[in-house]
């Protein structure tokens, strides 16, 4: 075990050396900018690959649910399949419609992918490994995740395709509605932590994960969050936006090649983000259960990713089991059930926090 700790310190010392070297060779302002760019590049590379492997995981999970084997030809156990797919998409011709609004049509995929990559910056993967610890972390996450829908609306509108337009309009309606539930269910938990900063939220959870601290209202909030989060990522049973049996491919009907890949990748990174937020807020982020590995801080990364992947699996499970809701049923669920329950839940949580009825170890 000590070897691993040493390697971790070596890794940290490498980053520290780079930091020191940068600040020694150039003025402070320039060095910080170069450092930011480097960090951004590392994030981009890591999460583009992570997104590809989430796609592979989804295909494997789907295959297990559907009595199939799944991709198993490219690389051992199909591990290189999505890499090959990505290469194929890069090399494909970018076709578009003649009557499309070219500027908005080309802009839309970047809105979607950039907003989902930006959200990744604030996650506390472990105590030292957090790129951007701002004091309004949760607010930032909710705000950033709303930008993606602009890309979907633009894409649907600018493609000059009726199927795409219907998909985009559905997306607008759906995201605006379910954002309320995402925000309010997270707000319920903020009542316990008293801070929007993600690192402080994790500190609070050292005396018990928030889902334990907040007990019943926290569990209700978690369930609402998972339902609304699945809707927020436009995945089945809330995939009204794509609804392949109704709209063909929905808002990205007219996209091909890499532009389609951006939409596709963004969906999977968004799924990761929704699961990662749930991990951070409800399940103690990088904290190990009962503090069993507290002495080895770098294991936090594995705890964080492990918890996130369990939740990602849960969302995949939803997708391959449930039929799709109809658009009016989708809105009924949000406005008539989730939202009132959520509002009552916040009041209950406030009372519990006020009366100090939270469970703390």
């Amino acid at each position: 075990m000590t070897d691993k700790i040493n390697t971790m310190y070596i890794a940290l010392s490498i980053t520290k050396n780079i930091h020191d070297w940068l600040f020694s060779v150039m003025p402070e302002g320039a060095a910080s900018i170069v450092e930011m760019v480097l960090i951004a590049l590392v994030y981009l590379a890591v999460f583009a690959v992570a997104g590809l492997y989430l796609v592979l995981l989804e295909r494997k999970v789907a295959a297990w649910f559907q009595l199939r084997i799944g991709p198993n030809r490219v690389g051992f156990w199909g591990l290189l399949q999505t890499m090959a797919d990505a290469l194929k998409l890069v090399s494909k011709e970018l076709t578009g419609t003649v009557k499309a609004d070219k500027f908005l049509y080309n802009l839309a995929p970047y809105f979607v992918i950039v907003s989902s990559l930006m959200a990744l910056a604030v996650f506390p993967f472990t105590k030292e490994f957090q790129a951007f610890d701002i004091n309004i972390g949760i607010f930032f996450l909710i705000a950033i995740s709303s930008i993606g829908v602009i890309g979907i609306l633009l894409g649907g509108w600018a493609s000059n395709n009726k199927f795409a337009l219907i998909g985009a309009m559905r997306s607008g309606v759906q995201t605006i509605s379910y954002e309320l539930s995402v925000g309010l269910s997270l707000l319920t938990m903020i009542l316990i932590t008293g801070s929007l900063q993600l690192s402080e939220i994790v500190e609070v959870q050292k005396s018990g994960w928030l889902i334990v601290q907040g007990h019943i209202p926290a569990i209700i909030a978690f369930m609402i969050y998972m339902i609304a989060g699945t809707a927020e990522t436009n995945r089945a049973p809330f995939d009204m936006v794509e609804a392949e049996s109704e709209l063909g491919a929905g808002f990205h009907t007219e996209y091909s090649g890499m532009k389609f890949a951006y939409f596709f990748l963004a969906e999977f990174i968004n799924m990761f983000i929704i699961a990662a937020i749930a991990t951070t807020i409800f399940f103690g982020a990088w904290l190990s259960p009962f503090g069993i590995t507290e002495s080895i801080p770098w294991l936090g990364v594995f705890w964080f990713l492990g918890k996130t992947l369990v939740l990602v699996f849960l969302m995949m499970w939803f997708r391959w089991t449930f039929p799709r809701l109809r658009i009016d049923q989708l809105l009924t669920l949000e406005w008539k059930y989730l939202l009132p329950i959520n509002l009552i839940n916040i009041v209950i949580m406030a009372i519990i926090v006020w009366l100090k009825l939270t469970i703390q170890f």
Partner: protein
Amino acid sequence: METTTVNSNFKSEEYFINMGPQHPATHGVLRLILTIDGEIIKKVDPDLGYIHRSIEKMCERDSYQQIVHLTDRMDYLSSHINNEAVCLTVENALELEVPDRVKVIRTIIGELTRIASHCLWWGVSGMDVGALTTYFYGFRDREMINDIFEETCGARLTMNYNIPGGLMYDIHPNFIKRTKEFVAHFKTKIPEYDRLLTGNVIFQKRMKGVGILTKEDAISFGASGPVGRGSGFSCDVRKHHPYSALDKVTFNEALKTEGDSLARYEVRIQEMWESLSIIEQLIDNIPEGEYKVATKAVIKLPKGEYYQKVEAARGELGVYIISTGTKNPYRLKFRSPGFSNLSLLNHIAVGGKIGDLVATMATLDIVVPDIDR
């Protein structure tokens, strides 16, 4: 208020959209011209002709043995039953009595075909409402039936097992054993279908009270098969006009009176149970004997008009032959179940959402080559 549209068929807030000919929900090359107001369907106008092969005209050219093979390409999911319909018409016209063995085998394979067809329908209707997993479960069980067919007659889809006067070959020695295995297997799988899809809250919400067809409308539109029976219209040809060995077995006609999509769904699930029961009653009692009676190489039907109807997987399939005494029919008309079932789509889908249209179409179980012969 002045409208800006030139075409006076549309109000300014309505628009039309082409669903098909290439669309996942139309299960083939069917084009639906939808008039939509936002999400709400105002008019459904099916446009046929994309897969027309003029089968009825080709029948006038062919001998009666050849016509049987063309019927495979109509409703390809119940090809055996289509073959049987033509063979029964020809045999009735010739007043030819086929051996009991042929009748029993035809009925067993017909019911297996029905189950296979309903398996596929169950899979794709789940897929139409967004539950993609059902497709593979349905196909797993259909595959077992296809394997039995393959062993029996060499084909999995376009069977060509019937000929006027009997069957092309005798059954394979494994046939009885494998059919029994399938029946035992499938009895455990229909409850699984129910657990996976039927009982699901979202599925129930999508299906219940959607696409309601009253009994009167069902009769006036000529609905047949599960679509008619879902509306309480007792129209099972097997019950009312038994053919082959169906008069020897007891079974219940699946009937529902609600008339909505869920009723049509449940009728089909019930029909799978009934088909299993028919197979079970017959599989141990296949009489010994010849598998065909000899006919002349060139069959000439006596001058006259002949009609025979059978219950295909989608409803009543009628074969109407006018013969002038030559080796080809003067005119041959198929009364296909899909055509009349599709004709009522506009009636039941108007007022629903796009999602409702897809769910309703799934329960009509449309096979386009059957509509567009």
